[in-house]
């Protein structure tokens, strides 16, 4: 592998930005955001430069690495601080820095009234750096650093307005659920080291062949758990909705475009493990399928625009995970959907941010309506994203999502049919809830509070939206034209055998579009025709109620983990006081008691003392006599 000395700057630039802004404090208030944006952009251009270099090399020569220093080395456990830039990571690098830079720009305006804007930019920069480390690390442990780093960034940004207790709680929840997932990554590393003696990607790739399927399955499952945590997949999905507490640019960048897709990256990156561990792979698919529907269902019931989008994100990542679980045939599509999703979902989030910006930070869609007239640019960019997510040709989503549905059908047998159906159904529901969002927000009658004065956002905000909208429109075509992405990535994955086609592509597309149309139609009938209440109706079906409560996910966590945990905690606190410390005190007390009672012997009467001596003499003689016998 070629080595390079430049990779580190990709990370170092934003990291330096974060450090400077945090250490300089208020002094950098004036120029901090500019510096951060600049550094992010610089990193993006560096990425582009690396891409250009990469393009200039033959496909086998494309991956390049950089060993920075020996990080941990104990016995055979040797971890270098090393970076790896290959065809897969470059995609992420560009996505992260590209979308990241755009969102930086957007935020300059979006956060302009916030006193702590500088800190916000510091966190953003920090996030970029951590995310880059995640995708550039050349071993699981390096990845782990970035993995938790983005978790921290996410925590900090969700809780950016943590003076509101609910937001603080949301950030905490995100961090802790992520930690649960991270534990899976720890286990994966441990199993890998115990069985293969290495934790680097290349090392494991080489050793995987000699390793038993059981061990690989174990690693795979643990990686999956990690992925579910970071990517808000079932069963660790509950945090994502609450994470919308963060400023909207954060939602766009972290909780839509980049961080939450880290799970997809992890699974794709670990293709050599999953390919050899069918069971784990199957689980990946199942998780993806469940989440896909899960997120979609939640999305149908949410009135909070950001939460609706978050549910959508969850669902879309479900698609990606599912695709990644399909093995070599799906990796490229997973990544492709990831990239297109990065554009259109980020765009929509920014759009949502723009709406909120104009609506006094109102997030309830039932209090929107008819914003089309007031925010035309937002409407257009949002609409383009909408079309993309629906998978309407030729928008980006069409290319990526159809591929996934197609591949799912082609998975073979019952599995293929089920997966295909699920993905199709998901597409339909997606169409329904996204249409609902569109209708509630932009069309119909206005249901605003009197204080609201909707207006279009400044150019610093709409420009990024526009850029992303362009991406939403074009990226699908660009990436899939001539299987560009698939070819680009193919050296990384095992070549796959020709798959048999259950349904021809054109049929799949047709089916998908049909379902989308049905979804749109239902939404249109339900919301556009009959109008919308400003207050959510309460006489709704039990299903709606459950969906509004995120399918009871929080209730479940509360009943199964939180309450018992609290009981256990207080019980242990009591135990510690009463039993363990009590035992210690008990010993002390009994010694005191014995002392006090023996003290009674000393009654002050000399005759008693004499009696004691006599008894002692008797005992002593007897004892000596007995011993002597």
């Amino acid at each position, binding site marked *: 592998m070629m080595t390079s000395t430049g990779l580190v700057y990709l990370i170092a630039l934003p990291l330096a930005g974060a450090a400077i802004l945090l250490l300089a404090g208020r002094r950098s208030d004036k120029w901090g955001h500019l510096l951060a944006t600049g550094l992010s952009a610089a990193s993006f251009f560096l990425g582009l430069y690396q891409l250009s270099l990469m393009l200039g090399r033959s496909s086998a020569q494309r991956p390049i690495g950089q060993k920075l220093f020996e990080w941990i080395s104990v016995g055979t456990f040797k971890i270098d601080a090393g970076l790896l830039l290959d065809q897969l990571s470059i995609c992420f690098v560009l996505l992260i820095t590209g979308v990241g830079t755009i969102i930086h720009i957007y935020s300059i305006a979006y956060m302009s009234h916030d006193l702590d804007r500088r800190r916000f930019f510091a966190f953003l920069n920090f996030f970029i750096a951590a995310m880059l480390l995640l995708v550039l690390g050349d071993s699981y442990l390096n990845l782990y650093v970035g993995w938790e780093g983005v978790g921290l960034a996410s925590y900090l940004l969700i809780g950016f307005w943590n003076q509101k207790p609910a937001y603080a709680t949301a950030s905490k929840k995100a961090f802790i659920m992520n930690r649960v997932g991270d534990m899976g990554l720890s286990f994966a590393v441990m199993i890998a080291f115990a069985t293969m003696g290495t934790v680097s990607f290349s090392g494991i790739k080489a050793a995987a062949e000699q390793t038993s399927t059981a061990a690989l399955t174990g690693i795979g499952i643990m990686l999956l758990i990690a992925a579910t945590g970071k990517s808000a997949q079932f069963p660790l999905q509950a945090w994502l909705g609450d994470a919308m507490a963060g400023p909207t640019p954060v939602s766009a960048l972290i909780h839509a475009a980049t961080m939450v897709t880290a799970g997809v990256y992890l699974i794709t990156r670990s293709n050599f493990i999953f390919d050899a561990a069918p069971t784990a792979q199957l689980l990946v698919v199942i998780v993806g399928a469940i989440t896909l529907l899960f997120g979609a269902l939640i999305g149908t019931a949410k009135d909070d625009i950001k939460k609706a989008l978050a549910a959508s994100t969850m669902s879309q990542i479900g698609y990606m995970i599912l695709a990644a679980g399909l093995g070599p045939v799906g990796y490229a599509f997973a990544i492709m959907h990831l990239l297109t999703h990065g554009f259109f979902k980020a765009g929509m989030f920014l759009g949502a941010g723009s709406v909120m910006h104009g609506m006094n930070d109102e997030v309830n869609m039932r209090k929107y309506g008819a914003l089309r007239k007031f925010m035309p640019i937002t409407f257009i960019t949002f609409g383009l994203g909408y079309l993309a997510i629906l998978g309407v040709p030729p928008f980006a989503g069409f290319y990526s999502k159809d591929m996934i549905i197609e591949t799912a059908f082609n998975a073979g047998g019952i599995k293929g049919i089920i997966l295909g159906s699920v993905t199709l159904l998901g597409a339909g529901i997606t169409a329904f809830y996204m249409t609902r969002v569109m209708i509630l927000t932009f069309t119909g009658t206005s249901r605003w509070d009197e204080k609201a004065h909707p207006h279009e956002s400044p150019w610093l905000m709409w420009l990024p939206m526009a850029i992303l909208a362009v991406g939403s429109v074009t990226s699908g075509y660009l990436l899939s034209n001539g299987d560009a992405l698939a070819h680009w990535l193919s050296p990384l994955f095992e070549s796959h055998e020709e798959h048999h086609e259950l349904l021809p592509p054109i049929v799949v597309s047709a089916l998908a579009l049909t379902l989308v149309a049905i979804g749109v139609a239902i939404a249109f009938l339900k919301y556009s025709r009959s109008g919308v209440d400003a207050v959510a109706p309460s006489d709704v079906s039990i299903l709606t109620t459950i969906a509004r409560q995120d399918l009871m996910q929080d209730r479940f966590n509360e009943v199964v983990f939180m309450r018992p945990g609290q009981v256990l905690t207080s019980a242990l606190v009591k135990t510690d006081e009463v039993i363990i410390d009590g035992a210690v005190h008990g010993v002390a007390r009994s010694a005191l008691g014995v002392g006090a009672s023996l003290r009674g012997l000393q009654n002050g009467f000399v*005759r*008693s003392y004499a009696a004691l001596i*006599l008894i002692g003499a*008797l005992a002593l003689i*007897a004892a000596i006599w007995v011993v002597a016998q």
Partner: protein
Amino acid sequence: MSELAMQVGQSAAPEAVLFWILAPLTLIAALGMLLVKKAVHSAILMAFVMVALAVFYIAQGAPFLGIVQIVVYTGAVMMLFLFILMLVGVDSSDSLTESIRGLRPIAITAAVGFGGLMVSLLGRATLGRGAVGVEAANADGNVEAIAQLLFSTFVWPFEAVSALLITAALGAMVLAHHHRIQERPTQRQLSIDRFRKDSLGAAAGLPAPGVFARHNAVDVPALLPDGSPASASINASLKARGDLQNSSIFELGTVDTSASEEK
């Protein structure tokens, strides 16, 4: 030890007679010490035990010790005891009921156990050698032989005992000796004092203690005609030492006039 062939006394049957008469008496006397109420009776019984022991000493070839036992122990030490008993109150008697809960049964059990154990152990003792008798050692006379030992082999403890005697004397003095607090007044000074006092009441001499009361001890003040105690009737040094009886119990008003024999 009963199996021992210590039949020294076989030819000396009188010793056996002596022992069997005197030993039970000694034991009874010793037991009596514990059982009699009055301390002075105990002392008498003690003296008897000592004398009996002196007899045993003499019977066992220790005439010197026997005599010393009588002279020193019975004669001097017991007299000292009796003297102190007088001081403390010769008629004082102990109540024999036990006041410390549980002590008596413990004491009796311990005593029976102790005595029993001692006797049974002694019964098991065998020396592995015969009783020699002190006739050979006393060949030159008991006193001479003891003197030999005392002034040669045991001269060091003998000297050391002198330190003990001094200690005892010194100790007794420390505990009992009173200092003169003021200068002893001269006769002349006394006379002057007597006549130059505030009143001439003292000129004729101070009242004698206890003369009007029904008690003639020197530590009880005389009573004045009004029945109050005359403090001047008590020697000043007694007063200073605090050896003073509370005179109020002898005041006329409080005296029980019904004639009752004082014990």
